[in-house]
């Protein structure tokens, strides 16, 4: 135990419960207004030396606090002793929700509180000044305190279902208050209204591990359930870093595009026009003169233009490396049809076709070509006597811009889903509120769940 804690927290005063005779320790040095017997749960007047019974109650220890009475821990720069514990609950749509509150005491600082719900913890301090009431853009109630605007989260009647230890007010089992919570994560302003008074307190979210460390509780805390109203959004949920990365990588891709475009050879290695007679018999295939493809691996752009008139031609091509015997087979088809139909002229297809052959190693190559077209018959045979002229052009290493824009699209693709993570976190936070959706939710999401506004 911290020696400093021994110094500032005096030894408890021992008394006996007038209801059941059990020993009662008073830790708050007369600062507490009531004390609840840990054995019979009777509420006693702590300001009276005879411990007058305020409320008789026969109960058993049905709730086991995480922090036992008398345990001490350092939070917010001071050492606190747990002197009281209560469980409170609200009923929403027929379902009971319970949370637990611990009364902390320091003789120099006074009282503070720890609240715990589903393993989410908040350090709570009473505030002396009244917050200023208002409304937000969606006409929901807000309160402003110390320049921070808090959005209304929930209002419900809270009742005390279990108490033990000392309290700075005259606590009673079954007492009810109207509790209203306003949040601005990680803070919360809460009001508790009875028929006599309104009290305000300010809470701040504390990770469970900090509580475990402060009070030296062995083991690890149970994992929190769900998203709590004051729970800070994890960095990943509110981070704008992915957008920053997107812009950095987009610029990188554009830089890469410029770099490869400026170093591209764009060298025309073959540009020949050939004639093909469809009516001719014999071997149609032939090879071109040899040409050099410079560089290591790069693409080769092949463009074919056919001087066609209501005809088609298919050119089978093989780019053959004269040194290695490696061949790259491909084909291009050009066709062009036109006519008049119902008084309207029409055209179909194109006399041009092109392809880019990827990753062709450098070396000495030649091109084997084998043209073919529809075999001429009947009247068409006479027309087909006219040779078909076609041009083949090969360009080594042409820039390819599309891939970089595709890359930018790929970079963009996950971002909307990453943005949804933050939205999902806020949706989970506000799911338990009186509104169901966050105050800044966009219209389309509110239409499905914001019925009560």
């Amino acid at each position, binding site marked *: 135990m911290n020696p400093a804690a021994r110094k500032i927290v005096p030894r408890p005063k021992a008394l006996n419960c007038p209801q059941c005779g059990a020993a009662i320790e008073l830790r708050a040095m007369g600062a507490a207004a009531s004390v609840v017997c840990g054995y019979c749960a009777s509420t006693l007047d702590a300001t009276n030396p005879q411990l007058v019974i305020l409320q008789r109650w026969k109960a058993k220890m049905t709730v086991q606090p995480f922090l036992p009475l008398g345990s001490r821990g350092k939070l917010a720069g001071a050492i606190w002793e747990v002197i009281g514990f209560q469980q409170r609950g609200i009923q929403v749509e027929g379902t009971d929700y319970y949370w637990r509150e611990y009364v902390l005491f320091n003789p120099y600082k006074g009282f503070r509180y720890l609240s715990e719900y589903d393993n989410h913890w908040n350090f709570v301090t009473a505030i002396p000044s009244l917050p200023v009431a208002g409304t937000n853009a969606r006409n929901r109630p807000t309160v402003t305190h110390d320049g921070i605007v808090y959005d209304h989260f929930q209002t419900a009647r809270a009742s005390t279902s279990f108490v033990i230890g000392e309290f700075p007010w005259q606590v009673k089992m079954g007492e009810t208050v109207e509790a209203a919570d306003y949040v601005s994560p990680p803070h919360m302003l809460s009001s508790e209204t009875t028929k006599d008074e309104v009290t305000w307190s300010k809470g701040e979210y504390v990770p469970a591990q900090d509580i475990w460390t402060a009070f030296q509780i062995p083991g690890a805390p149970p994992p929190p359930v769900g998203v709590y109203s004051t729970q800070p959004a994890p960095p990943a949920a509110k981070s704008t870093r992915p957008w920053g990365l997107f812009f950095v990588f987009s610029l990188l*891709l554009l830089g890469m595009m410029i770099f490869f475009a400026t170093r591209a050879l764009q060298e025309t290695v073959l540009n020949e026009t050939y004639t093909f007679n469809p009516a001719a018999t014999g071997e149609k*295939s032939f090879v071109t003169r040899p040409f050099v493809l410079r560089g290591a691996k790069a693409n080769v752009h092949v463009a074919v233009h056919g001087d066609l008139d209501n005809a088609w031609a*298919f050119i089978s091509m093989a780019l053959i490396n004269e040194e*290695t015997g490696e*061949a790259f087979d*491909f084909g291009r088809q050009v066709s062009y049809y036109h006519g008049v139909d119902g008084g309207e002229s029409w055209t*179909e297809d194109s006399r041009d076709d092109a392809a880019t052959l990827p990753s062709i190693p450098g070396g000495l190559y030649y091109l084997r070509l*084998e043209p073919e077209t*529809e075999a001429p018959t009947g009247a068409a045979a006479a027309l087909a006597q006219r040779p078909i002229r076609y041009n083949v052009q090969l360009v080594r290493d042409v820039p390819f811009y599309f891939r970089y824009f595709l890359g930018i699209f*790929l970079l963009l693709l996950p971002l909307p889903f990453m943005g949804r993570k933050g939205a999902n976190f806020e949706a989970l936070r506000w799911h338990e509120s009186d509104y169901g959706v966050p105050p800044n939710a966009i219209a389309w999401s509110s239409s499905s769940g914001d019925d009560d506004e």
Partner: protein
Amino acid sequence: MSKLYLVYSALVAGGLFYSGLTGWSFGSYDEVKGVPKSVRDNPGAYRSHYASSARYFGGK
């Protein structure tokens, strides 16, 4: 999540850089190895895979 996106972006950029270096792009061909040198003098001795494929017959 940002780290995952960083890795993803690096893979996209790395892939594009590699494709820029190697001349990779969309497009296909059939790669045939061991084409005899005699094809240079006798083109008919080599038959392209595409030579026997189906053709489109256009026109109305």
